[in-house]
């Protein structure tokens, strides 16, 4: 999940075709400062955008269809969806000459999972058996006692078979396992890299189509040049050079684009969208996205316990005018709980996700009317949520006659702490981005009992059961059917009010010959070709 | 002091050729100066007249605000204008009207021909430059001397005004000198280019009597040595009595009495002069009650019509209260008084 304090904006969709253009040129890319360039640590979009060019993993996503394809893996197979065997292609090396073998993956995953290493992507290892022994918690919270050393330093679920083969044992069956392997958190790492992660973070030792030139110039830029050790698809490195220029403010980035200093800007500042569309319509790439914005409902509060109240609230909101007014139409109004770009998406799952004030009023009356005080709408501070929340509040007030107020004074850290502590007193805005291209990524963490981001505290045994069945289904198709059944339950229970999904709006310059967008893994910078002079 | 060959530009030469060395060094005729203020035009000088002859010491005497300094600055050509404006009159230096000269010529007259000493030497010296720099500057800018030569000159000047250890002190800043020494530095600066005329604007008012005696002694000594004409501006009748040859008494921007020094003290011809003399206590006499000039000096934006002194005058009659102001009556040779009733005054 990419945690975003911003209004979820854009991300992925399939891009243009893959007909090979000409190689060469310097592709100048708008970027924001990555947190890390270590695959095990970088979990934010800016980091991943760079890591994907420096490193490659077992699986990649097809640039056109988004489908998972083997990359460094020869095959990933399982009979029970619990024990997986990974076979590797040979001949791949890291930049320093080390081979990309089973050890390269095992050592990276162990490093990520070991809690004292405090790697952000530890979370992704949590399906692998033995993860619980890799972490230990402080017995007295923040108290004086230090947390003891975890029991194990290696995941018991990872077994090397040979240099080109290893096995993975999961805690619970999960049919989507191979598909998730395209995520950058699962990329391999060189031994030299782990020996000095600090240095490796600054000058990564990758195994991908590009390598770093010089070192990471923090807050200024990162320059990648084509790697000569890359044995994979030669078309993965079309431009000679990828120059990421780091911006702190997207308006500044947009100005640089306008001044012709940038070739690709993957996210147009939302307020400049209309202007950009008018001015650069020809080089504006648009596609549906997968970031999800919702208004969570605090089910731990009495006034939200009745599902008719929740349905009524959802029915009072008319999304499209808000999207048009506040976001220049840059979102797709949500009609369900999973992204339209995903396999298994169905339109109109949520029958309460369209405006019907009359029905809303009726449902509320049936539920015995509104029992709370003023409706408090929560949002985190400083990023403009108040605007659309105000519109939402106005619509609820108009439909149901419930007066509202807006609380948008908490900065994101504290806002999240409030969420963790279940202290929201009314509907709260939150966003969600998928971790892997399986619709489960939108369901279990958000609505599963005890889910990592189940801020509404929704719990429904039937929903949980369907998810578990889906996880251990024999095929992805079967799994999707189960997940869809679970989504239907949400459509009735309405633990949250889905608002909208992002839309990708990426700008590229007239220097760009072919722009390539991958609906799963975002802009394929390596595959973009430049007009040759 | 030896003078190096002055750098003479053609225009300087032209200016020098205009001078009439037989004319008196300085003559001021019917000078009028106004200040533009928020409350109207202040008539600071209203028809100032006097003649300064060769080697003479002329005292200009008057109360605070009577226009003494303004007159001096007008002669030097250093009035701030705006707000000041010379509306009338002539200032003749050796027969040449300074007011008609070009700025450049006017500038050359300063320090070279006419120099000036100010009352408050501490603020009149630039606090951030050494005394040597400020003295030497004159030689460098007017005589084109080198830094070193001008410094030697500066030391010579400090010696001349009897500043001990001149060699060392030439590198000191003004604030490191005592009041008397500062005033002597000012004198040195004024005399540096050997001007013909020196204007001293209350040179000793800020000093103690013992120091005043030193400075006045030095000043008259140097005046004699250099055969300068001196305009001594003061309000101290004692100092004047000691050094002046003739006196112009000013009241409200106008000379009310102009006479040789002995005559004025013995037989004042203007009621203002007379009252002034009666109102000062004397150290050599244990006097009775002091005479008082009633009332206040006039406000310069609103000078009484007729004789400006009439509201305070015990001789005033009706004709004093209406324009025109009393003319300068010839009381004696070299002696004038601007009072209709000067005879009564002189006799009482």
């Amino acid at each position: 999940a990419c945690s975003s304090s911003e209004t979820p904006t854009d991300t992925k969709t399939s891009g243009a075709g893959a007909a090979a253009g000409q190689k060469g040129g310097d592709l100048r890319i708008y970027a924001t400062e990555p947190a890390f360039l270590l695959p095990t640590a970088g979990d934010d979009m800016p980091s991943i955008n760079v890591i994907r060019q420096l490193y490659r993993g077992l699986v990649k996503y097809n640039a056109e269809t988004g489908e998972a394809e083997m990359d460094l893996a020869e095959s990933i197979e399982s009979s029970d969806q619990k024990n997986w065997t990974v076979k590797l292609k040979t001949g791949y090396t890291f930049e320093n000459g080390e081979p990309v073998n089973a050890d390269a993956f095992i050592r990276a995953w162990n490093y990520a999972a070991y809690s004292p290493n405090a790697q952000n992507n530890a979370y992704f290892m949590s399906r692998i058996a033995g993860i619980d022994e890799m972490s230990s918690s402080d017995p007295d919270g923040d108290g004086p006692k230090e947390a003891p050393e975890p029991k194990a330093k290696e995941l018991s679920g990872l077994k090397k078979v040979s240099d080109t083969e290893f096995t993975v044992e999961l805690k619970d069956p999960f049919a989507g396992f191979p598909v998730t392997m395209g995520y950058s958190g699962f990329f391999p790492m060189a031994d030299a890299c782990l020996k000095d992660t600090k240095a490796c973070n600054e000058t990564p030792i990758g195994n991908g189509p590009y390598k770093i030139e010089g070192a990471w110039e923090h807050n200024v830029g990162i320059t990648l040049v084509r790697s000569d050790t890359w044995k994979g698809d030669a078309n993965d490195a079309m431009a000679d050079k990828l120059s990421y220029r780091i911006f702190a403010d997207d308006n500044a980035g947009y100005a640089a684009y306008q001044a012709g200093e940038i070739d690709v800007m993957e996210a147009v500042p939302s307020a400049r969208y209309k202007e950009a569309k008018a001015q650069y319509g020809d080089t504006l790439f648009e596609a549906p996205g997968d970031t999800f914005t919702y208004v969570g409902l605090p089910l731990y509060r009495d006034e939200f316990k009745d599902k008719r109240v929740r349905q009524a609230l959802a029915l009072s909101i008319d999304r499209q005018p808000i999207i048009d007014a506040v976001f220049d139409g840059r979102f797709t109004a949500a009609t369900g709980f999973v992204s339209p770009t995903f396999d298994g998406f169905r339109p109109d799952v949520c029958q309460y996700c369209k405006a019907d004030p009359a029905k809303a009023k009726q449902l509320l009356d049936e539920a015995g009317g509104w029992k709370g005080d003023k409706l408090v709408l929560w949002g985190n501070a400083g990023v403009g949520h108040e605007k659309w929340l105000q519109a939402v509040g106005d619509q609820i007030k108009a439909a149901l006659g419930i007066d509202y107020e807006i609380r948008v004074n908490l900065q994101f850290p504290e806002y999240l702490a409030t969420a963790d502590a279940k202290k929201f007193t009314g509907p709260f805005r939150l966003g969600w981005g998928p971790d892997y291209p399986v619709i489960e990524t939108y369901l279990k963490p958000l609505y599963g009992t005890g889910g990592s981001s189940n801020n509404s505290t929704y719990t429904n045994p039937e929903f949980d059961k369907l998810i578990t069945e889906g996880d251990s289904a024999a095929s992805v198709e079967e799994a999707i059917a189960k997940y869809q059944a679970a989504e239907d339950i949400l459509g009735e229970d309405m633990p949250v009010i889905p608002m909208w999904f992002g839309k990708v709006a990426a700008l590229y310059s007239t220097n760009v010959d072919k722009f390539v967008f991958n609906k799963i893994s975002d802009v394929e910078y390596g595959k973009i070709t430049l007009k040759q002079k | 002091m030896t003078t190096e060959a002055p750098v003479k530009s053609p225009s300087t030469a032209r200016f020098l050729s205009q001078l009439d060395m037989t004319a008196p060094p300085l003559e001021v005729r019917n000078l009028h100066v106004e200040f533009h203020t928020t409350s109207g035009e202040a008539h600071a000088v209203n028809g100032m007249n006097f003649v300064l002859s060769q080697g003479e010491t002329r005292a200009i005497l008057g109360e605070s605000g009577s226009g003494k300094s303004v007159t001096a600055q007008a002669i030097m050509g250093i009035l701030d204008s705006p707000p000041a404006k010379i509306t009338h009159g002539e200032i003749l230096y050796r027969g040449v009207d300074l007011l008609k000269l070009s700025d450049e010529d006017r500038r050359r007259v300063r320090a070279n021909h006419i120099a000036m000493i100010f009352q408050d030497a501490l603020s009149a010296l630039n606090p951030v430059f050494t005394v040597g720099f400020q003295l030497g500057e004159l030689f460098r800018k007017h005589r084109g001397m080198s830094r070193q030569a001008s410094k030697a000159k500066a030391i010579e000047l400090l010696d001349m005004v009897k500043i001990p250890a001149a060699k060392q002190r030439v590198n000191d800043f003004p604030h490191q000198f005592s009041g008397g020494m500062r005033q002597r530095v000012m004198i040195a600066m004024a005399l540096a280019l050997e001007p013909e005329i020196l204007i001293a604007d209350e040179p000793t008012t800020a000093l103690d009597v013992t120091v005043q005696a030193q400075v006045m002694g030095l000043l008259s000594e140097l005046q004699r040595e250099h055969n300068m004409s001196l305009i001594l501006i003061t309000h101290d009748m004692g100092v004047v009595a000691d050094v002046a040859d003739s006196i112009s008494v000013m009241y409200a921007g106008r000379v009310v009495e102009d006479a040789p020094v002995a005559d004025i003290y013995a037989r004042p011809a203007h009621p203002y002069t007379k009252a002034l003399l009666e109102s000062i206590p004397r150290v050599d006499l244990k006097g009775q009650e002091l005479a008082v000039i009633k009332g206040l000096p006039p406000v310069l934006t609103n000078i009484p019509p007729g004789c400006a002194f009439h509201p305070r005058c015990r001789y005033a009659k009706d004709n004093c209260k209406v324009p025109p102001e009393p003319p300068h009556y010839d009381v004696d040779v070299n002696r004038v008084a601007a009072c209709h009733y000067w005879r009564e005054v002189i006799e009482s």
Partner: protein
Amino acid sequence: MTDTPSKFGEVVLETKDLRKHYPLTQGIVFKKQVGAVRAVDGVNIQLRRGETLGVVGESGCGKSTLARLLVGLEQPTDGSIMLKGKDLSKVSSRDMRSVRRNIQMVMQDPYTSLNPRMTVGDIIGEPFDIHPEVVPKKGRIARVRELIDLVGLNADHINRYPHQFSGGQRQRIGIARALALNPEIIVADEPVSALDVSIQAQVVNLLERLQDEFGLAYIFIAHDLSVVRHIADRVAVMYLGKVVETGNEDEIYEHTTHPYSQALLSAVPVPDPALRGLRDQIILEGDVPSPANPPSGCRFRTRCWKAQEICAQEEPPLMVRPGSEHPSACHFAEERQVVGAVS
């Protein structure tokens, strides 16, 4: 000072060996005293009822410091001030206020000594705010008007601000303020030196008139020896924090014995051109030494034409010496007529 019988009343103010040293400190964290400016260094004076004591001396000799000590603006470093027989250092702070009422001050500069934000009435009435016991609240305005009238101003001007008055008028306001508490003593620190000659006489006359009317005693500080001669009954000549000669007006001006006093008097210009070049002028060399580092022995010796070895070693006490009738602090005190003397 000798207790010669006097036409004046009893002694109202007396100082005994009064000293004020301003410490000179050095050091960065811990300041240590490295010396002192001996602004007033052992001054003994006496003032009788109805008498005027003139204090003269060059700039920096400690006249103002003495004045400030007398009115309690500064605490003496040493020595004592006896006000009507009471030692001020021993008076309890509660009594101090009422004792202090007896001695008031007139400042030098009439332009800065009046608060520009207060009306004349407020300024003259302020003493009553501070000492409410003097005049009952009801009577105050009347009393203020009375005072204004007394110093020769128009009582209708009570609500005007100081800037609406001329220098001389302002000085009268200052005098009225000093008179408000009915003091017996007024310390006037150069009350006329900021005034024009024509105005100066008005104020001097006023002070004399008030003295006659109320039997006030004045300490009259000035550097203009002519004014002092005019107004003072007795004169103290100060040099570098010390009184070098004291006596009545005639003794000091006509029979001065201390070389410094002689030089000082001779330097005063006399407004009479007839005397030009005839007066016996003594021109002193050099400047006044720093009070932080006064010369040993006699402080005047560095500028004195009579100085001998003894002057450097022994400080001459202020006492009556043979051949003269008034005290003088010179080993070689000798009468010499300088004022009006025609040599």
